[in-house]
């Protein structure tokens, strides 16, 4: 009896898994959207009465020192503003390339895409680097740095399910190649279809999400800049 029951339960579990697959994806995108929707309220302003003035100091003999002219130093460059409105390319209808990473649908705007490659077999690994850095690939005389951003982008339960990468998404003039499961179609999007990321979001690599296509648009400029700075450990 029990033996008969086992396969049945197993089938149920499998069915559940199949049903859970899109649910899990939706949940993750919901989470991204939630993050975008969440705007942390500012702390309430508490009015504080000014402290009593300090007692007047005893009169002292004033000494006058000549004031040297101060050369004004320019303020340090401000960090690039975090987007809460569409970036320039997103303010008009734009095209995105859809690709899969660990089953998750991600997209890069075509204006930020350098190219697509079949995953090469001869990647030169660089010892001692972060596991996300898969190595270098020689492509038209350029050494493309191949990275797997799955560990940072995917929810933990999806990282183990990642199939071997089939394609590389080239960004930043081909300096970086993002390994992905596979490349899919291109989408034509209008700005109103995208929920743009809020500045307070926890995922700065995210430009926004498209609920209609259940995909997340990558902030390619941010990704390339922070990869170059070694921020993705």
């Amino acid at each position, binding site marked *: 009896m029990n033996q008969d029951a086992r396969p049945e339960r197993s089938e149920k579990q499998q069915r559940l898994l199949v049903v859970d697959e899109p649910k899990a994806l939706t949940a993750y995108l919901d989470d991204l959207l939630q993050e975008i929707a969440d705007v942390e309220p500012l702390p309430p302003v508490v009015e504080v009465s000014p402290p009593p003035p300090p007692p007047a100091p005893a009169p002292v003999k004033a000494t006058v020192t000549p004031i040297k002219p101060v050369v004004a130093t320019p303020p340090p460059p401000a960090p690039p503003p975090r987007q809460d409105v569409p970036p320039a390319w997103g303010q008009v209808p734009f095209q995105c390339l859809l690709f899969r990473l660990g089953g998750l649908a991600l997209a890069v705007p075509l204006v930020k895409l350098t190219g697509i490659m079949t995953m090469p077999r001869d990647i*030169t690994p*660089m*010892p*001692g*680097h972060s596991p996300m850095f898969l190595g*270098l690939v*020689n492509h038209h005389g350029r*050494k493309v740095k191949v990275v797997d951003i799955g560990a940072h982008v995917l929810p933990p339960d999806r990282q183990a399910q990642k199939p071997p990468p089939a394609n590389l998404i080239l960004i930043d003039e081909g300096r970086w190649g993002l390994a992905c499961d596979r490349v899919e179609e291109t989408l034509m999007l209008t700005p109103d279809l995208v929920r743009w990321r809020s500045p307070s979001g926890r995922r700065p690599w995210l430009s926004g999400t498209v609920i209609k296509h259940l995909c997340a648009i990558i902030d390619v400029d941010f990704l390339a800049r922070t990869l170059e700075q070694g921020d*993705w450990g």
Partner: protein
Amino acid sequence: MAKEPQAASATQYVTFRLADETYAINVMQVQEVLRVTEIAPVPGAPHYVLGIINLRGNVVTVIDARRRMGLMDKDSDDASRIVIIEVGGQVVGIMVDSVAEVIELATRDVEPAPNVGNDESSKYIQGVASRDGELTIVVDLNKLLTDDEWAEVASL
């Protein structure tokens, strides 16, 4: 007349193989290349130290380049070599899969090592050069170990 820029200068490197990849080290730091001889293990030595050898009466510490670079271990075979190098007055041997050739690389041909993950342990990678469609990893032997590690190896 302006002189040729320093960047155009070339350096000779000895190349060796590790895990099917080609590495290059400055020829000026290579003293000799030996076939693998008996290596006496040293108790308590760091994991990347294979042991010591007797090189014409001198004791030389042998470092396993694979272990140092975080690669899979591999038993030595006929192609394995111990490259005797000199770093900051200290003579050590590094065990490699095989020694290939002496090449010349122009400084401008060596691109700086990528900085992904900002890992301190990869600072020994000086750069990458493209040769015959393949990439050669240029190693800065001075940074193969940290100062503390060089001191530890010297005290074995």
